[in-house]
């Protein structure tokens, strides 16, 4: 009896779902994130312009290490945002490499920070600089992270924690690039504590809500 009822319920459900069917076109995994990417870069450009670009920017463009950092940040931004987009699809595991690329880049990034910190020696930081970069970073990242979380929420992710991790990586690298353009301090200790750590902590906090945020 119970099985019959269940069967009836499933048949009814199928009938109901068929009744609700409306034509839809397959969603492109990259369209939304491409829009986000362009909008975020424009927004970052606007914030950098508003805060003022660092005075020695022209000089720094001749510094290979500075360019390497910018390129690493850009590669991380692009790969993490692409992975985030792909993770909004249930069958994202078919392209597992999309997650591996940003994770590897992030690993190189952390190694880079550690190597440079050791090379520079952990010098005490000027009190003046504590906090102000974090505020600027939040200004650079707050709108892009909200937008990216909304994009993921409108998707159908089956890997909410990974999706949130990729969102955080994408936005953190965006902030990192922005702060390298506005902040004149190149010491890695400063960059790590003010340019990366606050966002890593905020990101980890957001990560706890990933499953609830991306519930569907």
């Amino acid at each position, binding site marked *: 009896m119970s099985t019959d009822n269940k069967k009836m319920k499933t048949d009814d459900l*199928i009938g109901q*779902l068929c009744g609700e069917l409306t*034509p839809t076109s*397959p969603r492109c995994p990259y369209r939304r994130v491409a829009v986000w990417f362009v909008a975020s870069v424009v927004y970052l450009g606007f914030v950098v312009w508003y805060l003022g670009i660092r005075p020695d920017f022209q000089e720094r463009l001749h510094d290979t290490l500075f360019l390497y950092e910018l390129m690493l940040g850009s590669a991380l931004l692009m790969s993490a945002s692409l992975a985030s987009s792909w993770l909004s699809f249930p069958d994202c595991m078919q392209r597992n490499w999309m997650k591996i690329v940003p994770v590897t880049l992030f690993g190189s990034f952390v190694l880079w920070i550690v190597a440079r910190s050791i090379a520079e020696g952990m010098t005490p930081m000027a009190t003046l600089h504590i906090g102000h970069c974090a505020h600027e970073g939040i200004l650079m990242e707050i709108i892009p992270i909200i937008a990216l979380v909304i994009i993921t929420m409108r*998707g*159908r992710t*089956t890997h909410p924690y990974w999706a949130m991790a990729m969102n955080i990586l994408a936005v953190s690298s965006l902030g990192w690039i922005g702060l390298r353009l506005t902040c004149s301090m190149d010491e890695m200790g400063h960059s790590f504590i003010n340019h990366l750590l606050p966002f890593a902590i905020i990101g980890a906090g957001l990560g706890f809500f990933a499953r609830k945020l991306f519930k569907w």
Partner: protein
Amino acid sequence: MSGVRIPPLRPFFPLFLGGEKYLSDQQNQPDQWQEWAAAAQKGDKRAYAALLGELAPYIKNVIIKSLSNPDAAEDIAQEVLISVHKSLDTYSPDRPFKPWLMAIINFRRTDYLRKHYSQRQDKTTTTDENFEFEASNVTIPNNAGELKDIEAALAQLPEQQQRIFRMIKIEGYTAQEVANEMNMNESAVKVSAHRTMKKLQGLLE
């Protein structure tokens, strides 16, 4: 009956009795689903009904292998069907259908198991048709009898007391609901249930 699950003989079946057709049907099934899903995205309700009709038993079979409760498997299967409906636009006919479906099935099954364990449903049990549990847990230790002793003791009480006791203690009605049903005062119902409990304790000691 023993609970031992016999593994399916699919790998060997094509070797005998015209199994090539069986194998080719199995291989074609996801292609057919892929076509139906593509048609459903264009609004073809017949294709969609055919797709969901075939998916329902398939999903249930996949889920039931990892769950002991068939009712739960049915519920999860329905959840998966709703999820398939919600996320139909995330399926691209360029990609294989089955991995997309399996990802949704695994996601919903994990969701169910997480809820199941967080509500500690794995630590609860029902006494319905669970005679072994009843025998070891429900009867009082000093009483050599089974549930029938409680039933017998209850049968010795007046009809109205029995009815109130059953409704409150067994069927889970509130005192107010029983009072309304029996046209009585709520306090009188509570007193009656309490007295019945005391009497039963006396009879069973």
